């Protein structure tokens, strides 16, 4: 693909945009790998097909980001074994190995997608141009995934409210703890292993973003997603309050 000129004001902007793309590509590949793993373990044919479909969708997103970064000549880095992404993957695999489709759906389509949709929207609006449009378009697609999963999870809640809420709570602390540490103002577990230099959160202002606002927006969308599923607000409020900050 031919490289096109993109107006980077300075090297800091180039670096932070590169890191933003690196995180997006890595995140999508994690999502793809997660659903690919799940498709191999579950027996139910419909769930198996759904898992493959999800994996393919994440693959398309990763391809889109890769192509765009190449077009812009960015210095991207993919690392599925980075500190946080690897932990997220391990949590997912823990449930995939138990053939627990619903738990996997909660991790991927509620927790990870809340962060993806919110942060892609913020990045898309900040970047503008064709890279911005790509982020916004993928955010829209991920939003549709969230909505579809919400319907499935609402049904699960109706079947066994107490059991479902208890299960959700366990997954919340397994997965959201990692995302919360990852998105905190300062990485609470050290460097993510994806950004090229120092943590990109300190440089987001070069593209008009703020890590505190991005994280806040992501948690807002996550809380709203829980509300839509039907998790009582008094419970989700306590869950969120107990996350690392």
């Amino acid at each position, binding site marked *: 693909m031919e490289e096109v000129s993109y107006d980077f004001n300075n090297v800091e902007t180039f670096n932070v945009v590169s890191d933003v793309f690196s995180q997006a590509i890595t995140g999508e590949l994690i999502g793809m790998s997660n659903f690919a793993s799940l498709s191999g373990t579950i027996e139910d044919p419909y769930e198996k097909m759904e898992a493959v479909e999800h994996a393919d969708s994440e693959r398309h997103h990763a391809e889109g980001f890769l192509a765009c970064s190449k077009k812009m000549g960015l210095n991207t880095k993919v690392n599925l074994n980075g500190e946080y992404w690897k932990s997220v993957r391990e949590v997912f695999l823990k449930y995939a190995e138990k053939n627990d489709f619903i738990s996997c759906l909660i991790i991927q389509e509620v927790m990870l997608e809340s962060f993806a949709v919110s942060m892609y929207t913020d990045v898309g609006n900040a970047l503008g141009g064709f890279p911005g449009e790509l982020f916004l378009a993928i955010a829209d697609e991920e939003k549709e995934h969230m909505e579809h999963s919400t319907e499935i999870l609402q049904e699960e809640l109706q079947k066994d409210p107490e059991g479902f809420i208890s299960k959700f709570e366990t997954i919340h602390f397994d997965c959201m703890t990692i995302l919360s540490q990852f998105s905190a103002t300062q990485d609470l577990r050290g460097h993510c292993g994806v950004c090229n230099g120092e943590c990109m959160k300190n440089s987001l202002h070069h593209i008009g973003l703020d890590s505190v606002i991005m994280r806040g927006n992501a948690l807002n969308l996550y809380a709203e997603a829980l509300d839509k599923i039907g998790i009582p607000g*008094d419970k989700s409020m306590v869950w969120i309050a107990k996350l690392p900050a």
Partner: protein
Amino acid sequence: MDSKTPSLDFAIVGHSEDWKSIQKFINGIRTAELEPLPVDKIKEVFGFIPPREIFRITLRSKTGKEVTGVYIESFIDPDKLGVTYLRTNINKVKKAVILAAKLNAKRVALGGFTSILLEGNIDSFEEYDLKVTTGNTLTAAFIVKSVEKAVAESGQDLNSVKLLVIGATGDIGMACIQYFKGKVKKLILNARNKAKLENAEKELIEQGVNIALGNSLEDLIPEADVIISVASSNNIEIKNVREGVIICDAGYPKNLDLKFSDLKENLLFHGGMGKVSHGYWFRPDYSNFFYTYPDQFLAHGCVLEVIVLAFENVFENYSTGKGNITNKGIEEIYCWSLKHGVILAPFYNSRGLCNQGNNSNKK
């Protein structure tokens, strides 16, 4: 919510007044095994949380009747109460009212700052089967009755005092003026909006009321024997008060006492507050870190209004709009309130209970 869901007698939509109380609450629910969060970390997240149910509350009337409702936190950032954030805050309050309807609450109080939605007549929520109130009538009632009590206890005659109202053009400020006009020697009005202040002056002069007004508190304060502050502002400075002045701090946030190094023999109390004599209970029990006051069972008048309406089984929009609170309304809700054992809060401020015997703030 389906028709089988039992209805709640009321919902309270509220907001926290300061970061200190928010920090206490958040660290309270985080439980002991987790490290307490510093306030700057809480600030990073708090205002982003959408409105949600926090706890159920049951209250008992003097008559023995019990009512149950829900507290919905609006998660309005206490640092963002200004005009710049009006649209965001109104959206939050609207979402909170929709949640109250979803929880099947019969009536909703929009407490404190959240009352902006009803004072502005922005939305009457007619599409939902619930009634709304700002709670401002009972707040005003508690303010005026506590001021009368404080003046009487100080040995002064009400008709000899000069009363300054800070925030005079707001809904509660206007109610206080209506109540005290003709009862005090002189009304002194202060508000940020000069045009509204001058309109109020014109009306009162036509009614033969002895008044003074101004935008500069510095000039007005030294003349006042009694000060009622009902403004929503962090920046009110109270300087050069008269000796023995009575200050009713009923605005948001209630922080005037923090600006005095020594209150001496002056009485400064948090106004607009009531006490549920027969008690209230939270589920989950957050009483150790939510609504903690120097005395048991205290609550804001705006919150208590919807509860009194529930005790009385009144199902109508009660306090709405701006400038609609009448003296008759104040007497009506105060009378109902007393009937159910919802009485004036004792005089207190952030330092503790005031010593009412000598009107000082010493414990």
